[in-house]
């Protein structure tokens, strides 16, 4: 991580309502804190209206304590690698069925749109596709492991 990366991260954090941000990478650790006391506010989920003519107002319906919106899953540069993040909380599957082969292994080269893994949540199957042609550098989760929203699943190198 060099000063340029830190600058980018600080900028990212200050553009959101995140008050505290921690990043650990090997023996490096970066903490960014803002303000005096952490203020927790409910932030409505981003409303995106792709094709609907009459967008319905939408409010997140979590009955649990409101939490600050986590950083949107974006791909951030880390030592030449890009992260593939989980868009939902769920179970990570590396293959379409227990008997079949994994979608990808470390070193696999995948085309844009090719499936990397499945995340299952409440019986909803979410196929995660590569958003660009890339090589799989690291697989950070075990098959059938529970993953959190925004957690890194893969490190990939854009080709």
């Amino acid at each position: 991580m060099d000063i340029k990366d830190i600058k980018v991260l600080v900028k990212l954090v200050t553009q959101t309502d995140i008050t505290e941000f921690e990043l650990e990478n090997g023996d490096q650790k970066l903490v960014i804190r803002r303000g005096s006391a952490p203020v927790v506010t409910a932030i409505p989920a981003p409303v995106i209206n792709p094709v609907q003519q009459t967008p319905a107002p939408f409010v997140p319906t979590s009955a649990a304590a409101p939490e600050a919106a986590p950083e949107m899953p974006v791909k951030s540069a880390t030592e030449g690698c890009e992260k593939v993040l989980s868009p939902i909380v769920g179970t990570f599957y590396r293959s379409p069925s227990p008997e079949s082969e994994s979608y990808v292994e470390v070193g696999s080269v995948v085309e844009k749109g090719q499936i990397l893994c499945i995340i299952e949540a409440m019986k909803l199957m979410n196929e995660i596709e590569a958003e660009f042609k890339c090589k799989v550098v690291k697989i950070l989760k075990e098959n059938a492991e529970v993953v959190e929203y925004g957690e890194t699943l893969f490190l990939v190198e854009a080709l």
Partner: protein
Amino acid sequence: MSQQARQLQILKLFQQQQGAYLSGAEISRVLGVSRTAVWKHIEQLRSLGYRIEAVTARGYRLHGSPDLLLPAEIRTELETEVIGRELVYFAETDSTNDRAHALAREGAVEGTVVIAEAQKAGKGRLGRHWVSPPGVNLYASIVLRPSIAPRQAPQLTFLSAAAVARAIAEMTRLRPTVKWPNDVLLSGRKVAGLLNELDAETERIRYLVLGIGININMTADQFPADLRYPASSLALETGSTVSRRLLTCALLRQLDKLYALYLEQGFEPILQAWQDYFDLTGQQVEVSEQAGICRGRVLGLDGEGALLLRLADDSVKRILAGDVRPL
């Protein structure tokens, strides 16, 4: 115009006649095809199971329809806003979910419903097979494009389960129950299964496919012996044949209602609708998770739809995935 479209048009003409005779000349005029072509279409409809009488000098008369799920048959009773806006019908296909994916990628409108009389490769969870014999059950997949975040998409599982339970209750007068989070049971046996699939970018849903399979008139000998969970059909539970057409209409209507409610008021009323059919609160259950098996008493669901269990050590465990069985 395809052969199928012409046949549907003839059925529509019969429906308008309400049992009266329809001359071959009239059919050929409306369809813009020859009398011979009309005769061929009538023969094909007969082979599908339609009982069509032909009387010289009077024409054709429909006096019996098979219980098929043809769009023309469904549409007459539909009365929905969004769900079923487009109906796509297959006598047989690989998997309605796969067809729905393909259509959605080509830009199919929200509410497009794919129905098949039979599936050669009916899909279950994680590569499992959904038994799909022809003409007895419902295999349907619905394309939705809600403007919600991908992480909210699992909420739609509860929506389709509640719609299926309501439609079954409406048609059979029986009391279905839901097995958390998605199966629908009658007398503890599975009669419907759901397989929802999401296609999303990191923060935007491109589309969602709700896959729904309901065992309607399946007979005992049509179930394989090695099922993972005891299964049944509506006909086996009620003791009489259930109209597939009416059940399909009831399901699409319930989906339409719940989806409108969801877009307007969010997840809470959907979860409530689902909980009307949930009977395990307060019961001891066993949950098999990836990590192993745990036992506890069901406290209910949290606002996200996760199952809350009180364990033997009095702690509360929040479950996001697993197979639940009552003890």
